[in-house]
C-alpha cells in the first residue's frame, strides 16, 4: 500500500513539474466560479449571458487590445470548494480577478477569501446583504440588487396598500430571515400602524404547503409577504390557491416575477401578486431589445434574470479594466469604486461607499396570459433609490478598510 502512496506522490510531483500557466499572456483571464451543477436552471442562463458579453466584447476588439477569456469552475454549491478553486484560478490560471456565484454562502466565502488574500471578487448573483455591509470589504463588489433593495421595493408597495395586518412566509435559513427582517423594518418605518400577525418558516425545499397555508389563514392577515421560491413556491401557490388563502389579500412575492421562478408555474402562476422580477419580453428599450435578440440568436432560448446578470457582470468587468487600464488588483478595485456603465436595463454605478451596484429590478403584478405567468403594470426601479442613507450604510459596514 505504501507503493500506492509513492505513485500518488510521484504523479503529484510530475503534475507540478510540467504544469506551467498554460495560457498565453495575450488574453485577460477572468475566473468564474458558480454552482453549475447544483442549480443549473439558474446558473446556465448566467453563463450564457456571460458568454454573450465576452463574444461581443472580443468582437469589438477586447479590452486594452486583448481578448477576455472566462475560465469557469463548478463549486458544486460548496463554499470550501469555491475557495479552493479561487486559489487554483489565481495560482494556476493566472486570472486577474474572480466573479460569479449564485448562493449567498458561496459568495460570502469568496468575499472573505478575497479580503484575506487581497484579490478582487465581483459577486454577480448572491443576494445576502452582509456581502456589502456587515461583511463588506475593500475587495468585494456586488452587481445584483440585494435582498434589502428588492424587499424595499416591495415594502414600498405594501405601504401603499390598505393592508394593515401582515403575515410572512419564508424559508428557514439566512436569506429568508434577512428578507423578513428587512421587510418588517422598512414597512414599519414607512407605515407605523401595521401589525405583523404571523410568521411561517418552512424548511428550505421541504415545505409542508398545506399546513403552512392553513397556519397563515388562521392568522387572518390582510397581506402576505412571500419569500419562498423554487419547488417550495410551486407547492405554496398550489395549496394556497386551492385553500383560498390569496383571495382578497394583498400578496407580495420576492423574486416571484423572475422567469426562473415564474415560468415553471405555467398556467398556475398566481394572479395579482406584487412581485419583483424580470418581464424580459416586454421591455422595449432599444438596448434591451438588442440584448434579447442577440441572446436568442446565439442560444435559441430566451433570457432569464441570470442571463442579464451574467451579461452585465462581464460588461462591468470590461468597463473596470478599461477604466483602470491595468490588470493590477488595487488599480481595479479603485476603478470599480464609482464605476458607471450602461447596461441593457439602463445605467448602473458601483457605489464607492459600499461597493453595491445600483442595478435595479422590475416591480409589477403577476398575471397569466396564454397559459404562462407574466408581469403586468411593471416598472423599472433604479436600485439607487432603495438603498439606505450613506450615514446608515457607514454603520452597517463596520469593517471598511477602503
Amino acid at each position: 500500500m505504501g507503493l500506492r502512496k509513492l505513485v500518488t506522490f510521484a504523479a503529484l510531483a510530475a503534475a507540478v513539474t510540467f504544469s506551467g500557466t498554460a495560457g498565453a499572456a495575450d488574453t485577460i483571464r477572468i475566473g468564474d466560479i458558480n454552482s453549475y451543477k447544483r442549480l443549473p436552471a439558474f446558473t446556465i442562463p448566467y453563463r450564457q449571458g456571460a458568454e454573450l458579453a465576452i463574444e461581443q466584447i472580443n468582437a469589438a476588439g477586447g479590452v486594452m487590445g486583448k481578448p477576455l477569456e472566462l475560465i469557469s469552475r463548478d463549486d458544486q454549491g460548496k463554499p470550501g470548494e469555491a475557495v479552493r478553486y479561487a486559489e487554483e484560478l489565481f495560482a494556476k490560471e493566472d486570472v486577474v480577478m474572480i466573479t460569479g456565484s449564485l448562493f449567498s454562502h458561496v459568495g460570502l466565502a469568496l468575499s472573505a477569501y478575497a479580503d484575506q488574500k487581497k484579490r478582487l471578487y465581483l459577486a454577480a448573483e448572491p443576494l445576502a446583504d452582509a456581502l456589502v455591509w456587515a461583511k463588506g470589504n475593500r475587495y468585494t463588489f456586488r452587481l445584483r440588487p440585494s435582498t434589502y433593495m428588492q424587499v424595499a421595493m416591495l415594502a414600498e408597495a405594501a405601504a401603499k396598500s390598505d393592508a394593515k395586518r401582515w403575515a410572512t412566509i419564508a424559508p428557514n435559513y439566512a436569506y429568508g430571515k434577512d428578507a423578513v427582517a428587512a421587510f418588517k423594518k422598512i414597512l414599519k418605518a414607512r407605515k407605523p400602524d401595521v401589525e405583523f400577525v404571523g410568521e411561517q418558516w418552512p424548511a428550505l425545499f421541504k415545505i409542508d404547503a398545506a399546513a403552512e397555508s392553513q397556519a397563515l389563514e388562521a392568522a387572518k392577515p390582510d397581506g402576505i409577504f412571500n419569500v419562498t421560491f423554487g419547488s417550495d413556491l410551486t407547492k405554496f401557490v398550489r395549496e394556497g390557491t386551492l385553500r383560498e388563502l390569496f383571495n382578497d389579500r394583498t400578496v407580495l412575492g420576492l423574486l416571484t416575477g423572475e422567469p426562473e421562478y415564474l415560468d415553471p408555474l405555467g398556467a398556475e402562476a398566481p394572479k395579482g401578486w406584487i412581485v419583483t422580477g424580470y418581464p424580459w419580453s416586454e421591455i422595449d428599450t432599444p438596448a434591451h431589445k438588442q440584448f434579447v435578440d442577440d441572446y436568442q440568436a446565439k442560444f435559441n432560448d430566451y433570457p432569464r434574470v441570470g442571463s442579464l446578470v451574467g451579461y452585465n457582470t462581464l460588461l462591468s468587468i470590461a468597463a473596470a479594466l478599461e477604466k483602470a487600464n491595468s490588470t493590477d488588483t488595487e488599480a481595479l478595485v479603485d476603478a470599480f469604486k464609482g464605476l458607471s456603465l450602461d447596461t441593457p436595463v439602463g445605467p448602473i454605478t458601483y457605489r464607492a461607499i459600499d461597493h453595491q451596484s445600483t442595478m435595479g429590478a422590475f416591480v409589477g403584478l403577476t398575471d397569466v396570459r396564454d397559459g404562462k405567468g407574466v408581469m403586468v403594470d411593471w416598472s423599472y426601479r433604479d436600485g439607487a433609490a432603495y438603498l439606505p442613507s450613506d450615514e446608515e450604510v457607514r454603520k452597517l459596514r463596520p469593517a471598511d478598510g477602503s
Partner: protein
Amino acid sequence: MGVYLVQFLSGLASASALFLAASGLSIIFGVTRVVNFAHGSFYMLGAFFGYTFVREVGGGAIGFWVALLLAALAVGLVGLLVEFVILRRLYKAPELFQLIATFGVILIVQDAALWVWGPEDLLGPRAPGLTGIVRIFGTPMPVYDLVLIGVGPLVLAALWLLFNRTRWGILVRAATEDREMVGALGVNQSLLFTGAFVLGSMLAGLGGAIQLPKGGADLLMDFGILAEMFVVVVVGGMGSIFGAFLAAVLISLLNTFGILIWPSGTLVLMFILMAVILVVRPTGLLGRPESGGHKTEVGVEQALRPAGPHYKIFIGLLLALLLAAPLIVEEFYLVLITDVLVLALFATSLHFLMSTGGLVSFGHAAFYGGGAYAAALLVTYAATPFELALLLAPLGAGLLALVIGWFCVRLSGVYFAMLTLAFAQVAWSVVFQWSDLTNGDDGLLGIWPSAWASGTQVYYLLALAISAGGIFLIRRVVFAPFGYGLRATRDSNLRAAAIGIDIKRQQLAAFVFAGAMAGLAGGLFVFSKGSVFPDEMSIPRSFDALLMVLLGGVDSLSGPFVGAAAFTYLHDELITFEYWRLLLGLTIVALVLLFPQGLAGAAKHHLGRYLKLEAGSAGRAKQADEGRPA
C-alpha cells in the same frame, strides 16, 4: 374547529407519499439488509417518470392513474437494473460497500435525470376530476388530499395481503425475520431479493409520482426526502411496514401541528421525536431486535501489527518529502496538499471508529463540522485567539460526540449507523436554521489564523504537523490498551462482556475520541478556508469520509491517507467534465465492484506480500466465520 380538522386531514394526506417511499425502503432493508441510500433517487425518478407519462397517456381520469402506475413500474425497472448489475454482487459484502455503491447510484441518477428532463423544475400535472375542494365546517380542503388519505391505508392493506396471502409474500416475511432459515428451505434467495428490491423501488416511485398534483418534479427531491424517509423507517422499526405507516402518520401530524405552535421548529421537531422514541424503544415503534445479534461488518478481520521496519522507513521518507514540499512545489499545490492532510485526519478518525471499533458512522461529518464551528464560534463571539480556538475545536466536537454517542451506542449495527446519520442531520439543521448564533447558511466568516500562521507555507507546515500528529496519535491509541479493548468489543461482544469490558462505555469513549479527532481536522479546515458553512456537516460530507475510507481500504491503517489523496485527485480530475457526477458515480460503483479491498488494500494484496511494507498476518478468514454469531 374546521381549521384543526382540516389541519389533521392535511397531515394524513402528506403522510401517504412519505409512507409509500419509506415502506419501500423498509421492505428492501428487511429482506436484503441493504440500506438503500438511492431510495430518494427512486422517489425523484417516480416524479419525473410520472410527469412524462401523464403527458403521454394521462389525458383523462383513468389515464392519469395509469400513468402513475406506469411511473412506478418504470422505477421498478430501474430498481431491477440496479439490483441486477450492482447490489446482487454485494449482498455478502460489508455494509459499507453497499452504502457506497448506492451512493454512487445517487450520483448517476442525478446526472441522468438532468440529461433527460433538463434543469428546470417541472410542474406536476393535476389529477383530472380531483382539482376542486370540499368544505369542511367552512374550511376549504382539496379533494386530492382526501384521495391521498385513502391511498396510504390502501397500499398498506395491499402490502398486508401480499405478505400474508401469497407464497412469495410469506417467504419475504420469513426472510425478514430469519434469512438463514429461508436459505435452508431451498428458496431461490436471489429471486426473493430481486423481487423485494423491485417492489421497494416501485413503492418509492409511486410515492414520488403520487405527490405530483401537489408539487412537481425537481432535481433536489432525492436528498430532500432522504433524511425524512430514514427517520420514518428508524422510528417505525426497520423492516416493519406497519411501523413505517405509523411513523409516517406520526411525523406528518407532528409537522402540521408543530408549525402552528413553533413555526421555526420545522425539521428539528421531527428529529426530537425520533430521539425520544429511540430512547424509549431503541429498535423503533414496531421493530424487533435483530435475532442473533446482528453485527455490522466493515470487512475488517485483519490482525493488526505495529509497523515493521520497512514501513517505518517508508513513512519517514514520506514525511520528509511532505516537509520539503514547500521547497519543491508551487504554492497552489501546498493548498491542495493541505486539503489532503485535513481530509486524511478526518478520514483516519472515521477509519479508527470503523476498523478498530466496528462502528460504522454515517454521520461523521457532524464532528468535522462540529470542530470547525466550535473554533469559528469561539473566534466570532469570544475573540478567542487562533491557537486556543484550534485547540478547543476537538474539545467542542468531542462534547458533541459525547451527547450523540450516548444515544447511538445503545444500538448496534445498522441501527447505530442510521442513528448517527439522523443525529448528523439534527446537528446540520440546528446550524442551518439557528441563524442568530451560527449565521445559518451565510456561515461564519473571517476565521483566519494569526498573522504568523497565515502564510500558505506556514499554514501548510502547521497542518502537516497537526494532521500527522493526529494520525500518529490515533495509531498510537489503536495499539494502546484502549484500542485493544475496543477491538475486543468488535471481535466478540460475548467474550468482551465476559472479561469485564463495559462494551458501551468503551464504544462511547471511542466515539468521543474519533469525534474529537474529526473536530481537530475541522478546526484545521476552518482556518485554512477562513469560513465555515453548514455544508461541512451535511450528509454528502459524511459520505466523502466514507468514500475516502473505502478508497484507502478498510483493513489498512494508512489507508485513509491514500483515500484522501485519491479522493481529492479523483474529484479534481472529474470535476472538469460536464457530467462529472455521472463519472464519479460510475467510478465509485466500479471501485466497489472491482476493488472490494480499496485501492490501498488492492495494492497491498498485489505488492505488499513481496515488499512487506506493512507486516500483516494472513489466514484470518476461517476464524472470522467461526467467531461470528450464528
